[in-house]
C-alpha cells in the first residue's frame, strides 16, 4: 500500500484542497503542540495582569482574569477539534445506521425512522441543538451529544437515499439471488458504495459543528468557563468591546479559520471522491 492514498494526492492538486488541508493541519498542530508553543497556562488567573495590551510576553494581550489570550486560543483548538470530530462522528454513526437500514429494508421501519427524522427537521436546526443542550446540560461531552444528535438527520437522509440507489443496481440483485444474507449484502455491496459521499459530508459537517458548538457556548449552553473555548471567550469579550476589542477579534478569527478549513477540505473531497454530488445537492448538504 502506498504511503499517501491516491485520493489524498488528488485533493492536494486542487487549490481549495491544499488550502483546506493546510488550515486543518495548522489547527491540529496548535492543538497537539499547545504546551510547546506557549509558556502560559490557559486557565490560571493572574489579576496583576488584568487586560494588558499586547506585548512580547503576551503577543495578543491578556483577558479580564489576567490569562494569556494566545494560550487560551491555542488550547481552545483542542476543545473545538475534539468536539468537531466526535460530534460529527456521532451524527455519522447514528445517522448511517438509521438511514442505511431504513433504505435497505424499507417497510414499517423506513416509515418510523423517517417520521423521526421529519420530527427533528420540523424544528429550526439551531433550536434542536439548543433544546438538546438544555436537556443534556453543560460540558464538552454534553456539547458533543447535543451537536451530534442535531447532525443525525443529514447523515440519515443521505445514507437512506444512497442506499436506495445502490440497492437497485443489478450486482446487488444478483448477490441477493445467489443467496447472500442481508448482513453480507449490506457489508459487502451497499456500505462500500455509500461511504464516499458520507465521508464528504462528515468533513463538511465538522465545519458546521465548529460553528454550532461555539454558538452554544457563546449562549452559555455549551462548554463553560474556565475551559478555554472560543465561543465562551467571545461571550465575556462582549462586555469589554470598548476597552479591549482584541479579546473579541482573535477567538472569532480562530473559529472562522477552522470552519473555513473544514469547508474547503470538504469541498475538495467532494470534487475528487464524489463528483456526482457537485451542484445543488452537494451545496445543500454542505451548508444546510
Amino acid at each position, binding site marked *: 500500500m502506498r504511503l499517501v492514498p491516491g485520493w489524498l494526492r488528488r485533493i492536494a492538486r486542487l487549490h481549495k484542497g491544499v488550502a483546506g488541508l493546510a488550515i486543518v493541519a495548522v489547527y491540529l498542530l496548535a492543538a497537539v503542540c499547545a504546551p510547546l508553543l506557549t509558556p502560559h497556562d490557559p486557565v490560571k488567573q493572574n489579576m496583576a495582569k488584568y487586560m494588558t495590551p499586547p506585548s512580547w510576553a503576551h503577543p495578543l494581550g491578556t483577558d479580564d482574569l489576567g490569562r494569556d489570550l494566545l494560550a487560551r486560543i491555542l488550547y481552545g483548538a483542542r476543545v473545538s477539534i475534539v468536539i468537531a470530530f466526535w460530534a460529527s462522528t456521532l451524527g455519522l454513526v447514528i445517522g448511517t445506521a438509521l438511514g442505511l437500514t431504513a433504505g435497505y429494508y424499507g417497510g414499517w421501519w423506513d416509515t418510523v425512522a423517517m*417520521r423521526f427524522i*421529519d*420530527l427533528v427537521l*420540523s*424544528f*429550526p*436546526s*439551531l*433550536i434542536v441543538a*439548543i*433544546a438538546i443542550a*438544555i*436537556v443534556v446540560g453543560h460540558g464538552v461531552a454534553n456539547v458533543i451529544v447535543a451537536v451530534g444528535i442535531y447532525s443525525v438527520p443529514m447523515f440519515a437522509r443521505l445514507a437512506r437515499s444512497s442506499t436506495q440507489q445502490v440497492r437497485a443496481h443489478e450486482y446487488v440483485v444478483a448477490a441477493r439471488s445467489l443467496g447472500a444474507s442481508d448482513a453480507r449484502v449490506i457489508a459487502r455491496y451497499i456500505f462500500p458504495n455509500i461511504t464516499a459521499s458520507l465521508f464528504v459530508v462528515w468533513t463538511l459537517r465538522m*465545519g458546521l459543528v465548529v*460553528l454550532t458548538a*461555539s*454558538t452554544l457556548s*457563546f*449562549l*452559555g*449552553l455549551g462548554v463553560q468557563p474556565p475551559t478555554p473555548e472560543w*465561543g465562551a471567550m*467571545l461571550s465575556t*469579550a*462582549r462586555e469589554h*468591546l*470598548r476597552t479591549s*476589542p482584541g479579546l*473579541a*477579534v482573535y*477567538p*472569532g478569527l480562530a*473559529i*472562522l479559520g477552522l*470552519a*473555513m478549513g473544514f*469547508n474547503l477540505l470538504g469541498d475538495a473531497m467532494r470534487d475528487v471522491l464524489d463528483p456526482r454530488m457537485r*451542484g*445543488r445537492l452537494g*451545496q445543500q448538504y454542505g*451548508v*444546510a
Partner: protein
Amino acid sequence: MLPLILRRAVEAVPTLVLVTVTVFLVVHVIPGDPALFLAGDQAREEDVAGVRRHLGLDRPYHLQYLGYLGRILRGDLGYSFTTRTAVADVIAPRVWPSVQLALAAMTLAALLGLATGIVAALRPHGWIDTVVSTVSLLGVTVPTFWLGLMLMWLLAVHWQLVPSFGTGTWKHVVMPAITLGAAPLGIIARLTRSEMLEVLQQDFIRTAWAKGLARHVVVLKHALRNMLLPAVNFVGMQIGIALGYAVVTETVFAWPGLGRLLIDSVTVRDYPTIQGLILLFAAVFIALNVVVDGVAMWVDPRTRHAG
C-alpha cells in the same frame, strides 16, 4: 391550486401533534420537580403535594398530555416560573420585534443574494463571480455572533454610526439585520448562481439568444422566470434556518425578541416559558414550510392550472 395547499396544511397536522408530544416528553426528562420549584424550598411536604395536584402532575402521563394538548389549543401555555403570569402574556410582546428583525434580515438576504447570484452567473469565473463566491463562502463560515460583535465594535463603538443595542429607530435594526442576514445571503447567492447557470444552458435560452433578443430580456424575462420556483424554495428554507439563528442575533444585540426570551428563560430555568417558546418556534417553522409550498405552487403555472 387551493385544494393542494389545503391538503399540504392538513398533512402538517400530524407533525404538529408529534411535536407537542416531543415537547411534553422532553419537559418530563429535564431534571427538577416543577411543583417543588413553585412551592419553594421551604415548603412543607403537603404544600408540594398540593401544588402537584393543582398542576395535575399526579395524574398518569397520557391524561396529563391530553390536558396539555387541550390547554395549548385554547392558547393556554401555562404560567411562567419567573413572572408568575401566563406564558402567552410573556411571549406576546416579544413577537413583533422578532418579526421586524426577521423581515429586515430576510429582505436584505433575498434581494442581495438573488441579485449577486444572477450577476455572478452571467460571467462565470469572472471577477464579479470570484468576489461573490468568496463573500458567500465567508457569509457561511463566519460565526453569526462574532459578525455581530465585529459590527458592534466597528459601526457602534469605533465610528459611532449606529446605536450598539436597543430598539426604536431604523438605525437600531441595521446591525442585527446584517448579522442575521449574512449567512442566508451567502447561501442564496451560491444557490442562485448554480441554478442560473443551469437555466442559462437550456435550449429555450439558446433560442432566445438566436432570436436576437436583448440581453436584459433573455436574462430577466426568460431565465429569471424559470429560476423563480427553485428560488422560492431555497429562500423559504433559509427563512426557517434564520428563525433559529435569531436566538443568537437577539442575544448579541439585546434585541427584545423571542430568541432572547428563550436564552433568558434558560438562564433562570423557566421551563413553562421554554416549552412554550420551543413549541412556538416549531409551529412557525412548520407553518412557514406550508406557506413556502403554497407560494411555490402559486408561481408554478403547471400546478396553478391543474388545481
